[in-house]
């Protein structure tokens, strides 16, 4: 084998792969995952914190009993009006950040927002976890509003008491799950809860809470937040 052959292959490889470009969404995904992993490591070292619990205790319980894990009676901070707005739309990045901050006040840190492919995201970190909100219009992103009837049917038929659960409302379907994050190399004590609320008008809000030992919000608290808070402004 000569150097000429090696040079040739090197040139061919570079030519063949030259037009391959990384997606702009990569950076956002790396930052989100990296922050969660860094946070979980810190939380493990520090033994976690109670700041979020205190904040939630003063906010989410307004007008209702004290929150406990999976307590469906937890009140949402900004309930949607009884009459549905005429034309709700996905929030802008700034609007989503403000809504998340209003829903989860306290000793939190706003994370710079990433907006990719029609999806808007915001994060808030706490001493013992991270809460992420993702909003989008499935009609624009997926080509048509998502009908989650088929997703919920087998869950409901199976008793609705497994890792994945579904709640059907007048306005849509809230599919939730909880357990260990499926992230290689993460904190083994990390736990998460997540809900994706597919509204019948096509708008989607996805909330994820991740924390060391336990997520900062329970599954049912997330469901309540997703289905009752005013995530989508009216244009």
């Amino acid at each position, binding site marked *: 084998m000569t150097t000429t052959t090696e040079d040739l292959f*090197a040139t061919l490889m570079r030519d063949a792969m030259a037009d*391959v470009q*990384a997606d702009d969404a990569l950076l956002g995904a790396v930052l989100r995952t990296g922050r969660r992993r860094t946070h979980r*490591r810190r939380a493990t070292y520090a033994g976690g914190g109670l700041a979020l619990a205190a904040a939630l205790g003063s906010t989410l319980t307004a007008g209702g009993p004290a929150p406990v894990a999976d307590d469906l009676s937890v009140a949402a901070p900004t309930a949607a009006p009884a009459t549905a707005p005429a034309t709700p739309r996905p929030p802008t990045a700034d609007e989503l950040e403000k809504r998340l901050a209003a829903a989860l006040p306290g000793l939190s840190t706003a994370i710079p927002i990433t907006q990719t492919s029609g999806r808007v995201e915001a994060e808030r970190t706490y001493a013992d976890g991270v809460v992420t909100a993702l909003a989008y219009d499935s009609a624009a992103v997926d080509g048509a509003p998502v009908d989650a009837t088929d997703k919920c049917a087998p869950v409901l038929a199976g008793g609705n008491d497994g890792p994945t659960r579904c709640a059907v409302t007048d306005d849509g379907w809230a599919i939730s799950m909880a357990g260990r994050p499926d992230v290689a190399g993460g904190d083994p004590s990390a736990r998460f809860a997540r809900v994706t609320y597919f509204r019948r008008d096509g708008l989607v809000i996805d909330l994820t809470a991740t924390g060391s030992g336990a997520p900062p919000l329970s599954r049912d608290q997330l469901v309540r937040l997703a289905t009752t808070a005013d995530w989508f402004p009216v244009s």
Partner: protein
Amino acid sequence: MRPGEQAEFEDFVRTRSSELLRAAWLLTGDRTAAEDLLQEALVRVFTRWRQVRRADNPIAYARTVLVRRYIDGARRRSSGERPGLLDDDPRLPRSAEPDVALRQTLVAAVRELAPVDRAVVVQRYLLDQDVAGVAADLGLSGQAVRSRSTRALARLRHLMGPELAGALSTHPDKEMP
């Protein structure tokens, strides 16, 4: 991470991720798997960025993480596993675009190599790393890297055959020995 450090990391990802994705694609043989591998590698870089940015060559660290994660993953997987429809799957149509067709041919040929040989080829010829650097990353001797390079290139020449001859015509200043 402080704001200045994050800005540096974001700039690093924006300027270097395509280069790393090309390497990951050749290593994994599949764009989706490549993006997953790259994301995992960059997350690792992110979590150690404060130390990495002080090093002389952050991209070298990122390349090393990428290749080692690929090798570790390949060792964990069963030898016959093919996770889904890959870019070189014969069920996929061959592109009529010359550049895309060359990439499909190259990816398919490289996938026929053993994981360590793939890593050697990608590191030496796509990433232009020297023998000593490849040897350090893969835990091999310099001689082992050279012999694997020779063997892998011979195999690629055999696998690429006609496509390689066609590609040669676009490089008239080169000739095969």
